[in-house]
């Protein structure tokens, strides 16, 4: 595949923005000022970047507990995400949601989620709404390998397939559900092969190759948009950090394995490839990194200086 430089740099920019956002969140979280729990997306950035590059603001996304990258790639400004995860009143949910309950309907973002697999039928439901509406919106559900042995995976995909809904199901197979190795969780570790079981295409892609993800996701989203129904996309990837911030992530996997995947970092892979082929220079990447750093620092500063929600608002919004 011929590499489009502008596209590659645009995808790199999203990935490095996500990476730096996550590392800044990690830094602030470790300083002890951030409430709750965070699950970082470090190592998996190519999936959110490659998939969401095809989405319009009016399209829908549902996400997971590891969802900061999806939220950002779908268009929510970094500072609103940062402030929400910090529990600030200026966050996209006013500090009521936090990391695992980030919602931004104005960007088509129907939630990160504390319940593994719950976003799958919800995404299919957004696709049902799109279908009833009659336009060409699509809905993408992101989820991990930990979701695929849950009934919500089966029921959500089955209904979307039965009703030919404009849905795309993106499995980020990072090989571990918390500490449970996928090879121990199921006998067939190729999630994509489950697609044909529901009568829909199942496609496997290197989830650390953003251009490959971009291509496969583009086909799946175009199929959904044009009335061709759902696709199950499996992105083989890896989180090079622990399950949640505070988990060293080494009790259930070897340091060698983690190090091997760090060498396959999706940012580094793309960068090396572009530079080696002479399509872009080290300086271009450095500039993008610096711009991303500035964006993230501004987001962090905005969040740090933002007010907390007022305790007397606690009863607001239980009901519409």
């Amino acid at each position, binding site marked *: 595949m011929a590499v489009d430089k502008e596209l590659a740099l645009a995808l790199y920019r999203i990935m490095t923005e996500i990476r730096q956002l996550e590392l800044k969140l990690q830094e602030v979280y470790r300083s002890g000022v951030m409430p709750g729990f965070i699950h970082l997306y470090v190592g998996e950035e190519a999936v959110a970047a490659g998939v969401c590059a095809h989405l319009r603001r009016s399209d*829908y996304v*549902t996400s997971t507990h590891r969802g900061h990258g999806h939220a950002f790639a779908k268009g929510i400004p970094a500072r609103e995400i940062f402030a929400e995860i910090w529990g600030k009143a200026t966050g*996209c*949910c*006013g500090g*009521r*949601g936090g990391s695992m*309950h980030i*919602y*931004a*309907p*104005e960007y088509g973002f*129907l*939630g990160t*989620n*504390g*319940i593994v697999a*719950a976003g*799958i*039928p*919800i*995404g*299919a*439901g*957004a*696709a*049902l*709404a*799109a279908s*009833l509406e009659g336009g060409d919106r699509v*809905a993408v559900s992101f989820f991990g390998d930990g979701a695929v042995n849950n*009934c*919500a995976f*089966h*029921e*959500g995909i*089955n*209904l979307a397939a*039965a*009703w030919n809904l404009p849905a795309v199901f993106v499995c980020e197979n990072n090989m571990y559900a918390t500490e449970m190795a996928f090879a121990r969780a199921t006998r067939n570790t190729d999630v994509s092969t489950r697609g044909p079981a529901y009568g829909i295409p199942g496609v496997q892609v290197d989830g650390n190759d953003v251009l490959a993800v971009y291509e496969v996701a583009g086909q799946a989203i175009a199929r959904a948009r044009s009335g061709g129904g759902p696709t199950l996309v499996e992105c083989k990837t890896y989180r090079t950090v622990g399950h949640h911030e505070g988990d060293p992530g080494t009790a259930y996997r070897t340091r060698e394995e983690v190090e091997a995947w760090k060498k396959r970092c999706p940012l580094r892979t793309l960068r090396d490839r572009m530079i080696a082929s002479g399509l872009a220079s080290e300086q271009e990447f450095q500039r993008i990194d610096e711009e991303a750093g500035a964006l993230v620092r501004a987001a962090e500063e905005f969040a740090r200086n933002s007010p907390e929600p007022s305790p007397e608002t606690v009863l*607001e*919004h*239980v*009901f*519409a």
Partner: protein
Amino acid sequence: MTTPAIESRSQEPPAEREISYVDAGIEALREEMRRDPKVFYMGQGIGPRGGNFRQARGLWSEFGDHRLRDTPISEMGTTGLGVGAAMAGFRPIVDIVFLDMVMEAMGQIVEQAATVHYSSNGKIRVPLVIRAAMGAVRSAGPHHSRCFYPWFANVPGLKVATPATAADVKGLLKTAIRDDNPVIFLEHKALYNTKGPVPAGEYTIPFGQARVCREGADVTIAAVSLMVWKALQAAELLAPHVSAEVIDLRTVAPLDRETLLASVRKTGRLVLVEEGPATCSFVSEISALVSEEAFDYLDAPIHRVCALPVPHPFHPALEAEMLPSPAKIAAAVRQLLG
């Protein structure tokens, strides 16, 4: 089944017809689906078959496959799709058929539908109706008989409607469909074929408005759904020596505290009836409320008449022994009065 007559409500239009509880629900659905194209209805067997309880009869031929969606037996999937479609601006009604099967879908209701509006800081509404039929009829056993409504009332963000009459089915279901929040709408299987007066014109009934079905001076008996009828039968058994006031609370959440408390302040005695076990029940909540708000008015301890704490037994005699009855309610009242 025959049901005692209830007093007509003076604020409603005079033109009334006698229609069945199940047909009242169909009328509500038809009117709301005609009024609002965002309303659609999903459930197992509600298409050409018209629903297991005939609760969707005639709708499919008018609204077609897209808005009258027959689903596979997939309660969690169907409910989850309902949540997603509601978040995306539609107004789905998901029919669980037998309430017992809602257990398969509880995560989507409790952890998704009920929390999204709050967690999103009011940005996303979930105008979803979960419709189901509850209650014990004809030895259906432990998987087709239960009345789970207190479980939902325990969840912030959910509303729970439990109509006892045909008129209330129509008025409350229309309100449920128009509500911007998730509503659990529970009909009683034993009431589907009962008939009652239903206003001919357009009307809705607000949530959180109880109805005094029978006025009385000596004791208040409060209930919802089928147990309202059992309470009215008990009041007949007690008359003329005991004057019992019977209150249909109509919606479990929100609860009409004022009507209930006003009645207790008047009669000084309260008997609560529930077709479920007493432990952590809806009537336990009411009992706590009354002891907090009207303790000084009570002339006797609050008494709960509930189902015995056993899974629904199969044999009719065992099932009857388990459930509240007019005789059991009347006995409880007599005991209170000494």
